[in-house]
């Protein structure tokens, strides 16, 4: 260690260090232009000149390359130093008068005009570029010439192919003199960012995306200079913790496992092969994935809607559907990709929201396939309220106006009129496909793929591959959306857990939390994290202003702004800040506690704080999103919401969290395919399960069905399933039984069933609701008046009985959407298109001479069902479209039944005499009200049960311990019902496999001394959680069973003496917020 004087003060540093390094460390900044931490210092720019006193005399040295020695005295800030630097700057300014960095330096020394002759150079000959190129292991450039002719150049003054175009020289050049294009023969282009679909560049060292797990940078071996030349390694000089190891090799890790789940996903179709769409040639033709990035706050344009060619905001955007789907001419994808209609509508709606002025959004489609839960409503809203245009036409080609880069579409509308429209941007709704690498992986694993390169599975075994013990979920099985993928993921887990049940828990490690810090004697030290949520909050609310205001609030000791407070790196950071700043209350001003409270509370626990020391201010869902046009008011409201949260945070206290035991049994309601699947899933995992069925037999709606769309005989599989259920040692089946009463809570339910007048009560830890749904009985098309008008299920029955009336007819007409997609039931019943087409094919097979007409609104044979649609057309089934305002009419004259429908292509009404009319009738929910009331479950507007989260928690209810499966959730085909039922079993087993559960701490409590035993709270409690307990002195007092208490606080309001109160929401805490809100 060497000691010397720096600006009059003693400083210490290691031998071998230079003055500049040490001065930086001690905060005495020395200006420099040619210094780089990773390069040998050269003292070229002379700007770092300092004064050195060696005990005898004073002289000037360059700080960057002058090594320190003991006893020397350095002055970096004296009048003499500044005089020398001023002269150096003046000389540089004379040489390069137009270089911004030099102009700034000159301005700093008040030099308006140099005293020397001005040149117009922009290179200060610092040689940084040359030194860094050498460091790269390359030396493609050097300083050539002599005297006044010296300059940075390549050999023979020509572009060189030795240069790798790595860009290091340009990136270090202080003046901007170096132009990579002058040096290299290679094409200079940024490394395309995979995450941003190539719309943005990235570095060879990069974090794949902001929320990546683990959130650590990776080195791209194929782009890193070190792996090309052996040079560089500059990153190691900058990494403060020596985390970079270039010698790491790929390694093969062998794991012994009992089951494998394949969830590798899909790749978006590359539309390059659609030559007529000009995707490669026209900059403003983008794929839907690229458009997702354009709309994203973390995307290439920070969420501003702009087009690639010129960065202008487009006024007109077109979406072209079915690119790489439903097409065997330009690609070999006969299937429908299932998700594109919905995402295109979503993109159009969001684009309209993002646009600063009115955006014309047009979707060109063949059939709109919004068959998922609540999708049809979204489509209707996009069309009728948001004004997205939907045009039924498949676009053949796109041409471009080469001056403006606008795009010209020609299309025929439904009347057959040719139109031409100019759009400023075109989004190609690309389909989903299996990447080649996955096909190879499947071959390597000997897993059977189907003709579309998706994993072959069975209707009754939707997540099992052809290889035992290997399961699949998500789009590798068939293109599908998020909720269905999530269901399949849990279903695959269910199957895997069944075969691994004996090993359950054997490798579990309990998460250890640090000991809770006792904050009871501390004053509140509140930390506030204000989230931008990308641009969701920051685009509307002035977050810096809000953060500044928050700093002034009482008790607040720390405030920080985040791009995404919920990201993993922010959580790590938050934990450190809590510890470092000694915070004992944390507020996150972001989205809603309903979705994010638990995440932040976990971070508090990791930092040793009780989770109840946390509070949220909802400045997104209840502020920026609902006041998006009133930015100032939204900013003020955010301040108010944070002030309210701070007021409350002063008062909140840590709370204990008691535990309760779990009854490891399950109860499944509904004995159809879904109910039986859940029951078997649970029993196979080793949990005793009660199956309650209302009718006298198991099977549900499937009893009436003949074949799945894949051609499996349903009766055979059903029989096998019933037998397995009835014979399973862990399953108790109760038919002819209804649910009479239900009490309890997760882990400890009590359900009373009624069987022929006799009641039985079961104790169990989890419930699965799989009560199914029923077929709508139509009130139109002469249904019920004429025997030849049947519903789909009635047709199946008739076919089963080989009814000649059905099979011998000459003309059969199917009418789709009977009772679906209308004002009364604005949802799609999902299965009817496939069912009608499948039935039509069956009828054709039995009676090839039969003429079959299918009257439809959109054909929704999503996924690989599309093949059935293609086959039906091949076999001559006639499809005629109708619209809701011009529905077909059925007439009967004598014994002749006929259907009248407007044919759009002919432009006139046509009459079809029909021997048989099949109504594809809607699936409607059962009367679910009483069951919903008993278990306190929500129903949606249509009467189906409502899951906790439409995308991410599709089989769970918001009420813990209760799960959902099958068509009680929403209409769906058998394979999806089975996947959902297995998922429900899987999620239920998460509860049942635990020995005990933790109860929330925010429960009510009764102060026994103040309680006079009046029993008002017992009456008020909706959860039967309070009872009166006799005390020794003959009086009684109320007692709260914490496990039953939901913390509603009704007791606290009912209590006349103030004995009952509620933790975490007591009177003071609520009133503090009222007061703060009105301040």
């Amino acid at each position: 260690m060497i000691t010397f004087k720096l600006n009059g003060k003693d400083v210490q540093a290691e031998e071998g260090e230079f003055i500049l390094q040490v001065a930086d460390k001690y905060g005495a900044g020395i200006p420099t232009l040619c210094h780089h931490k990773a390069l040998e210092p050269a003292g070229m720019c002379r700007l770092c000149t300092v004064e050195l006193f060696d005990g005898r005399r004073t002289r000037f040295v360059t700080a960057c390359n002058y090594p320190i020695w003991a006893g020397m005295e350095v002055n970096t800030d004296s009048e003499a130093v500044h005089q020398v630097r001023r002269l150096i700057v003046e000389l540089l300014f004379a040489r390069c008068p137009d270089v911004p960095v030099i102009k700034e330096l000159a301005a700093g020394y008040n030099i308006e005009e140099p005293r020397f002759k001005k040149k117009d150079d922009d290179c200060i000959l610092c040689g940084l570029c040359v030194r860094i190129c050498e460091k790269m292991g390359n030396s493609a450039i050097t300083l050539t010439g002599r005297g006044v002719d010296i300059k940075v150049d390549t050999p023979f003054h020509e572009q060189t192919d030795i240069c790798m175009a790595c860009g290091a020289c340009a990136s270090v050049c202080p003046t901007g003199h170096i132009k990579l294009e002058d040096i290299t023969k290679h094409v200079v282009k940024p490394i395309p960012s995979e995450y941003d679909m190539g719309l943005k560049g990235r570095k060879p060292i990069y974090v794949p995306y902001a929320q990546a797990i683990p959130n650590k940078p990776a080195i791209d071996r194929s782009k890193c200079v070190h792996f090309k030349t052996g040079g560089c390694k500059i990153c190691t000089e900058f990494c403060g913790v020596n985390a970079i190891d270039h010698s790491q090799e790929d390694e093969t890790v062998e794991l012994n496992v009992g089951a494998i789940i394949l969830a590798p996903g899909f790749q978006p179709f590359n539309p390059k092969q659609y030559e007529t769409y000009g995707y490669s040639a026209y900059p403003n033709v983008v794929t839907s994935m690229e458009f997702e990035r354009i709309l994203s706050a973390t995307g290439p344009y920070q969420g501003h809607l702009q087009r690639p060619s010129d960065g202008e905001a487009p006024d007109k955007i077109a979406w072209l559907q079915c690119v790489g789907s439903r097409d065997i001419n330009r690609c070999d994808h006969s299937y429908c990709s299932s998700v594109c209609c919905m995402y295109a509508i979503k993109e159009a709606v969001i684009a309209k929201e993002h646009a600063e002025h009115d955006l014309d959004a047009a979707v060109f489609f063949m059939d709109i396939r919004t068959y998922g839960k609540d999708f049809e409503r979204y489509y209707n809203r996009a069309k009728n309220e948001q004004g997205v245009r939907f045009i039924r036409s498949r676009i053949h080609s796109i041409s471009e106006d080469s001056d403006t880069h606008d795009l010209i579409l020609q299309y025929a509308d439904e009347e057959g009129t040719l139109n031409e429209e100019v759009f400023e941007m075109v989004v190609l709704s690309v389909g989903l496909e299996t990447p080649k690498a996955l096909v190879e992986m499947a071959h390597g694993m000997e897993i059977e793929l189907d003709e579309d390169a998706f994993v072959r599975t069975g209707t009754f075994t939707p997540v099992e591959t052809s290889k035992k013990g290997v399961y699949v979920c998500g789009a590798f099985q068939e293109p599908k959306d998020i909720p269905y993928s999530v269901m399949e993921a849990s279903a695959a887990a269910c199957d895997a857990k069944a075969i691994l049940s004996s090993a359950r828990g054997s490798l579990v490690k309990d998460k250890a939390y640090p000991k809770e810090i006792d904050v009871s004697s501390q004053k509140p030290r509140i930390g506030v994290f204000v989230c931008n949520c990308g641009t969701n909050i920051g685009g509307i609310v002035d977050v810096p202003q809000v953060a500044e205001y928050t700093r002034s609030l009482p008790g607040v000791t720390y405030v920080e702004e985040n791009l995404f407070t919920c990201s993993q790196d922010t959580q790590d950071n938050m934990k450190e800040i809590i510890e470092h700043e000694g915070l004992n209350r944390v507020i996150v001003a972001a989205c809603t506690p309903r979705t994010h409270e638990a995440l932040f509370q976990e971070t508090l626990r990791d930092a040793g704080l009780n989770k109840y020391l946390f509070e949220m201010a909802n400045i997104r869902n209840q502020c920026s999103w609902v006041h998006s046009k009133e930015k100032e008011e939204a900013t003020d409201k955010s301040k108010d919401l944070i002030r309210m949260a701070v007021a409350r945070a002063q008062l909140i206290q840590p709370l204990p969290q008691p535990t309760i035991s779990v009854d490891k049994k399950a109860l499944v309601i509904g004995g159809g395919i879904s109910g039986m699947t859940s029951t078997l899933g649970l029993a196979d995992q080793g949990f005793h399960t009660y199956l309650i069925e209302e009718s006298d037999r198991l099977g549900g709606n499937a009893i009436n069905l003949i074949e799945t769309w894949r051609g499996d005989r349903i009766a055979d599989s059903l029989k096998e399933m019933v037998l397995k259920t009835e014979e399973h040692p862990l399953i108790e089946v109760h038919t002819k039984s209804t649910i009479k009463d239900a009490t309890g809570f997760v882990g400890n339910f009590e359900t009373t069933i009624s069987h022929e007048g006799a009641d039985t009560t079961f104790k169990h830890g989890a419930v699965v609701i799989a009560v199914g749904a029923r077929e709508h009985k139509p009130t139109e098309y002469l249904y019920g008046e004429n025997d030849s008008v049947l519903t789909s299920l009635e047709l199946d029955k008739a076919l089963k009985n080989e009814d000649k009336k059905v099979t011998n007819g000459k003309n059969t007409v199917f009418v789709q959407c009977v009772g679906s997609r209308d004002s009364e039931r604005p949802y799609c019943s999902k299965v009817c298109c496939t069912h009608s087409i499948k039935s039509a094919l069956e009828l054709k097979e039995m009676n090839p001479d039969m003429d079959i007409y299918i009257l439809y609104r959109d054909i929704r044979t999503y996924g690989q069902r599309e093949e059935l649609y293609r086959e039906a057309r091949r076999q001559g089934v006639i499809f005629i479209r109708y619209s809701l305002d011009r529905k077909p009419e059925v007439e009967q004259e004598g014994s002749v039944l006929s259907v009248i429908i407007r044919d759009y292509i002919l432009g006139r009404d046509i009459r079809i005499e029909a021997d048989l009319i099949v109504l594809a009738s809607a699936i409607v929910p059962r009367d679910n009200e009483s069951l919903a009331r008993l278990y306190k479950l929500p129903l949606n507007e249509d009467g189906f049960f409502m899951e906790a989260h439409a995308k991410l928690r599709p089989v769970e209810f918001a009420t813990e311990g209760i799960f959902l499966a099958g068509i009680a959730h929403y209409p769906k085909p058998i394979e999806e019902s089975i996947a959902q039922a297995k998922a429900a079993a899987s999620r239920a087993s998460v509860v049942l496999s635990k020995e005990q559960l933790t109860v929330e701490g925010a429960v009510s409590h009764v102060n026994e001394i103040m309680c006079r035993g009046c029993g008002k709270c017992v009456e008020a409690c909706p959860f039967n959680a309070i009872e009166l307990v006799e005390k020794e002195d003959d009086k009684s007092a109320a007692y709260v069973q914490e496990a039953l208490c939901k913390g509603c606080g009704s007791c606290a309001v009912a209590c006349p003496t103030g004995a009952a109160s509620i933790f975490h929401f007591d009177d003071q805490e609520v009133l503090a917020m009222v007061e703060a809100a009105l301040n």
Partner: protein
Amino acid sequence: MSQEFSPKIITFACNWCAYSAADLAGVSRFQYPPTMRIIRVMCSGRINPNFVLKAFQGGADGVLVAG
């Protein structure tokens, strides 16, 4: 009275329904006037009449109990 009346409204919202409905209004981007301040409670049954009176006493022009 040239200024437009801008009422201060205090809303007590039940965590399980009204509060999540207010969240859903956000997700759906429904727009409403920025004059309301929502206070989350675990149930509308938690609302002591005293809270309402205190709000008025503090200067609120309206109180909404939603649950």
